[in-house]
């Protein structure tokens, strides 16, 4: 297994948080972050930011009911079956 440097860990922090790394690479980054005093604060900072966006994402508005009805009506009156 290759050595993980701080440079690599910091460069891949968001790919790690976004779940974009292969399992093996993610594991390497995770191990490095957990034990590296230099990288851990950056990780915590990025993680707080990431969690904030997830919270906002969960609280986003739903489409209003009248729009839901408009779209349903549109599809009904469109009449045509989508081309097969």
């Amino acid at each position, binding site marked *: 297994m290759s050595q993980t440097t701080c440079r690599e860990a910091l460069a891949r922090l968001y790919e790690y948080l976004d779940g974009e790394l292969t399992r093996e690479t993610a594991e390497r980054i995770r191990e490095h972050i957990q034990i590296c005093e230099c990288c851990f604060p950056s990780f915590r900072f990025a993680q707080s930011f990431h969690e904030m966006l997830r919270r906002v994402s969960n609280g986003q*508005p739903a489409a209003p009911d009248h729009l839901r009805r408009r779209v349903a009506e549109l599809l009904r009156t469109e009449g045509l079956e989508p081309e097969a």
Partner: protein
Amino acid sequence: MNSKESFEAEALPHLDAVYRFALRLGGSEADAEDLVQETFLRAYRAWHQYTPGTRAKSWLFTICRNVFLRQRQRDDRRTEVVQQAAVAANAGGASHDADGFLFAHASAVDPEGEFFRGIIDDSIMDAIDRLPTEFRDAVVLSDLEGLSYAEAARVLDVPVGTVKSRLYRGRRLLQQALYEYAAEQGYIRTR
């Protein structure tokens, strides 16, 4: 299941997500509603082109964005020049290392980014809306709608590497804006 039923089963459940995406593209709620209606109409007519088993959500986002861009070309009320100027200004100012200016400042007063927890959602959405378009779109698709880099790349019609760099820059700008907001509001003390 006929095609109408499959459309209702696979596409319609994403109405909320398409509406949120349309809202973030700009304009009023009424504009967003018109955009959603047009998106679903076009998607319905083109449903035979959809590949079953791929993600309908990102397919709908692609249509939504294309409709929006075409409408904007027709009715160009937006000040793209101003936005491009903002991008150019940011390109010169932001740091290129992994954490840069913001983290260097924030780490002195709030190393774990606690201030992010105190900012209310409306302020965060305002800050996202103020990002330059190309960065905002990447942040919205990835961070708010949960698309993978590859899916966002298809919606935006750019390479995956471009999504990564836009996301990186967009997040940096957003962090900076929120840090300044938090300092103004007194969530953090900047010495």
